[in-house]
């Protein structure tokens, strides 16, 4: 084991203990570890962006000025200067151009993407679940497919009713009908099952990370 590995190991050990101090509360040591993580990540990102983006895509094209690529490079350069100007004079309208452009593009991309990538395919998936070919198997009812299709439809509707019920419940003083309450309760069951699965996955991922780092500590101690 080289001295560099030894230094890295002890640095990792100290940082791990600082993170473990969170078991005793949000302490100063845990804060230092978090700030260290954020600082290191930001520094690395800055270096990568400088090396991979700013220099090759913004500065280098300016060297071949008469060419089209250099002219096109002026557009991000101007927008970048406007963003930098925003740090000094926020009230200027012209500085809102790059942010407005970026916000508009992101919003449009999200709306279109959600519609095309999630909403429409998921609705079609529910409809396709009731396709006769899926609900029958060699001329016999495919009970598994039928159960899955109806459970999918019931789950979607019940979860919709949960949010609808919560929204209406805040506005109306009178209690909702019993069937609506019951259906919303079924939806809450679906949501609870989903969150339970997410929690198990989250714990499993964290547990794997914990085991891996403890294993590395044991391996390191085993070397001596």
């Amino acid at each position, binding site marked *: 084991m080289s001295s560099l590995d030894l230094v890295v190991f002890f640095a990792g050990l100290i940082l791990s203990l600082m993170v*473990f101090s969170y*078991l*005793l*509360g949000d302490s100063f040591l845990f804060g230092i570890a978090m700030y260290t993580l954020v600082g290191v*990540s930001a520094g*690395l*990102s800055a*270096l*990568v*962006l400088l090396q*991979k*983006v700013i220099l*090759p*895509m913004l500065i*280098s*094209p300016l060297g071949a000025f008469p060419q*089209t*690529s250099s002219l*096109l*490079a002026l557009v*991000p350069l101007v927008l970048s200067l406007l963003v930098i100007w925003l740090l000094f004079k926020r009230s200027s309208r012209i500085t809102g151009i790059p942010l407005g452009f970026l916000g508009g*593009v*992101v919003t449009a*991309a999200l709306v279109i*993407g*959600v519609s*095309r*990538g*999630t909403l429409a*395919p*998921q609705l*079609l*998936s529910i409809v396709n679940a009731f396709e006769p070919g899926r609900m029958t198997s060699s001329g016999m009812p495919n009970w598994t497919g039928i159960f899955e299709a109806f459970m999918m439809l019931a789950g979607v509707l019940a979860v919709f009713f949960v949010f609808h019920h919560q929204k209406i419940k805040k506005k109306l003083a009178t209690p909702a009908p019993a069937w609506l309450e019951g259906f919303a309760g079924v939806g809450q069951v679906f949501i609870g099952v*989903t969150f339970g*699965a*997410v929690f*198990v*996955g*989250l*714990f*499993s*991922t964290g*547990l*794997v*990370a*914990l*085991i*891996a780092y*403890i*294993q590395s500590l*044991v391996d390191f101690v085993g070397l001596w």
Partner: protein
Amino acid sequence: MSEQPDELRICPHCGQPNAVYTLRCIRCGEELEELFDLQGFEIGHVPGSDESEDEIASMDQMLAALDESSLLEDPKQEDPDSPDDEADEDGLEPEVGDETPDWLEKVRQRAKAEQDAADRLARGGMAMEDQRAERDREQVDQAFEEIMRRIREQNEREKARRPWRAESASVDENGDPEWLRRIRELQPDREEDTKEISAHSAARSDLEDEWTEEELQELLKRELGQVDEETEEEITAEISPLRSVAFEAEPEESAESALLLPGEEARAEPELTNFHNIPEDDEEAQAGQPEDEKPLIEATEAEQPAQSSAEKELEEANRQNGELPIPLEDRETVSTQNELELVEEAGLEENFEQPAMQADLQEEAVPRDKGEAHDQAEIEDKSENADQFPPENEPESPEEPFQDLLLLRDQRDRARALKDILYQEGRRTIAVLHESSPQGKFGRLVLGLLLMIGILVSILIGPAGSIDLPPQAHALAFQENLASLQPGERVLVVMDYQAATRHDLEPLAARVLDILAGNDIQRRVVTANPVNLLLASNLLEPAQLPDEFIPGGMLGYLSLAAASPPNWGGLPISLAFDGEAELFARIDQVILISDSADFVRMWLEQVSPWRAGIKTSAITTAVSGPMLLPYHGSGQLQGFVAGVTDAKVLQVGPQDLVNLRAWQAGMMLMMVVLLLGMITKVDQDFSRRSEGQGR
């Protein structure tokens, strides 16, 4: 005479209605001679006389004429010294009878007889009227003297108390003002509790002083109940005294109500012994009680003797129990004065008075034994609420230094609010979310240590173990999709994960890359995450590190997927590539290595629609698996493997995975903790529900 007070007598001269016993018309001043129409002595209707010519003699003239008439003189009063009056009289009559005709003699005899009756009648009426006027004057004078005596005594007490007030207004040795000391002595129990809390605050954590939801609910219920009980108690206790104080203001307003004073002296007398600090304005307000109160007083004055006796018995019972050091009249005085304040409030006047009076009348209508039972019940009720109202029901101290401290209800409420504010000084009034208690911190520490110890023991003892879980459908789909790749096809590998999840992803990603390399499948590795430029060294050879960093994150992928290079040149983003600028050129499949379900979803939303012919699969963590299942069900995601649980599908060697025995131990420990937490939560809910039903 007073039986028909509504009768009126019309004046024959002017037509003015007059009282039936009025001697002269109140308008024209003429005498109402029809007042005493004596039978057989009708002057205006003497037979043979003419009404148009003869004037009608007035009553006094008639009486004067009768008095002056020698025929009607009383022989006993005429000459008491004469011994032979009777004889003379007897002897005179024959003489007169000898000289006067018979009809005249009959007239005189008749007149004499009726003169005696009229005289007795008039004198009797006048004597009764004089007697009644004399009695009224005596009662008015007595009431006036009583009021003046009270005012003088009260002024003397106020004067005697002013130096003491000025002296007691100073600040004590602790720096506490007089009003604060009074408040503290009014509620000694709470003060002791506060001292105890402050004394133990150093030992306790500050989190215990916070209001939890249960404490807030309990406090809210207690305060609501306290307010209700207080309102009901004061209403029941303060209705009847309203009459007495209202009655005190009556004599100054009308002489008619002053007639009631002698009967109320015994009731009003104890108030003279009471000190109070009611401002003079309040007393003036009491004196200026509105006229609307009068029917209230007159309607209930008949029941006051019984009420007084019941109150005396209640006071005796209180003294025996030692619960109420303040006399009942004192409390009633305070309550009554409070009532006057309430009466002055316009909003409460109609809503409070009439139901209260009805309830009071109903209470006083019950027999005396029931009234005693009611009083006893009221005492018990006050005893039960003694903890809520300690200053009212408990002896404050042997000396009772503030025996004279009687507060109006408004003043008491404000003092209580001020005390609550002082009591909650420095405390948090709104519950803070997600802030754990010391017990929570301790439990978290114990749980963490248990988990670490279990993992450590599992690593040190025995082999790593293996997981024999049934393969998931999405994992099988991923494996089938990977196996469907033919040699020579191109796969785009997109990396986007953090260092914390590398142990969950990299064994799977490394196995996939090995399979691709073994099947002679071309791969292209890109990333938009700067961290993955370093982490990729764990998967790839140094020569295979991703040299294509996509700027802009998902927007960069979107631009590369949606845009096409123009004929006159390339896109600015093409400068990020050293080699082929088109990212999706000749790509057959895309494998996403990501620990974020959002990244996979964004890819399916933003990039895949533009490249519909490219199949997409993912290597992700266990936490992202449930979120990606719908996309696998819809066919947008060909398949995915999630964490070490799907490692068996890819035939990942145990040596490349984490210690699965430790993983099983950790999962089992967490399952036990979750079950215990569920049982505890159910038990808490059941206990809370039981308490709620009990209340």
